């Protein structure tokens, strides 16, 4: 790619992800169909199979799935500046919209009706999060090891109030050690 082409591609990525950031509600997976239209169907820069890989990698790296996917796609198409433009485009609408909104929220927060509305909304949000929890649980492998880690992570934070970061690191290590033991055992069984 020549310099001029590269610049054009990076600008296209910026504009595409700006649109995606401005029109996706809920982030993460809600973004995938839009990515498909923008970079798979319109430009054919990547394929549908690439999209599956990108989702898998975004899930197994830290950070928001949407940011991971934007960075990855940008990099794959146009290197560092592609990654930069895609990610910047994705983030920009959020920053602008939320900044404006926080000013409005600050003005109406103390209003009685707004407070009543938020009392109701909090109960609704609880329902939404439990729904998200249930769908995550459905996608999680169902075996004894998963259940133990799930319960452990929950109890350690809920009862002993241990820092969430230590729990994440700990569970990652436990998962690794467990899977290594399982592989070794299977190997021994075969031989």
């Amino acid at each position: 790619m020549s310099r001029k082409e590269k610049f054009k591609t990076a600008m296209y990525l910026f504009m595409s992800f700006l649109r995606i950031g401005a029109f996706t509600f809920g982030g993460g997976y809600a973004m995938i169909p839009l990515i498909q239209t923008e970079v798979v169907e319109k430009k054919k820069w990547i394929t549908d199979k690439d999209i599956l890989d990108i989702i898998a990698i975004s899930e197994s790296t830290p950070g928001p799935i949407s940011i991971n996917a934007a960075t990855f796609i940008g990099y794959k198409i146009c290197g560092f500046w592609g990654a930069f433009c895609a990610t910047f485009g994705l983030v920009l609408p959020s920053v602008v919209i939320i900044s404006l909104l926080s000013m409005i929220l600050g003005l109406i927060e103390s209003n009685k009706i707004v407070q009543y509305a938020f009392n109701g909304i909090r109960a609704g949000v609880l329902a939404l999060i439990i729904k998200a929890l249930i769908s995550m649980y459905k996608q999680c492998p169902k075996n004894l090891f998963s259940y133990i880690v799930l319960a452990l992570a929950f109890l350690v934070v809920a009862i002993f109030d241990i820092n969430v970061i230590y729990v994440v690191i700990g569970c990652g290590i436990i998962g690794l050690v467990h899977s290594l033991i399982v592989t070794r055992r299977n190997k021994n069984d075969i031989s």
Partner: protein
Amino acid sequence: MIYLELFLTFFKIGLFTFGGGYAMLPFIQEEVKLHGWLTDAEVINFVAVSESTPGPFAINISTYVGIETGGILGAICATLGATLPSFIVILLVARFYEKFKNSKIVSGCMTGLKPAAIGLIGTAVLTIGKTVFFPTAVSLASVMTFGFVSSLVIFALMFVLTMKRTHPIIIIALSAALGIAAGFIGEAV
């Protein structure tokens, strides 16, 4: 310095959240409370705001916490902090991604991280439930109040609707309307 604090806090959150979206919630609750930036109720209110505005939840909430505590520059620092770990890690992974994809170490860690994320969101549900149903203190007396009963009714209704795949924005609008109605009924009772 508030800007550096915002940047580092959200960098940490971005670096250790796997699964995106609500998986970030327990981290945010913990950090935001630790620094005294927002109350539990404010965090939940913002979840609703974020669901009703476009953009990723993680970016929305980092911008919000940033702007509330440090103005526009605070918003930029917090959002940069939340984004940078993803950006750096993906740039590293993208170079040898075939290797990463087939790595036994990565998939091994994920067998622990996936269930852990669910357990951790469970703790967020616990905190949110407490804020919704027992805003002042967990006690038997508060179960008898109008506020508790109305929250329970709204929650139950919304839970049924959300399991029927009603759009989150409709859930939020409906629960806002019911909340306003409950508020005025509560005044009259």
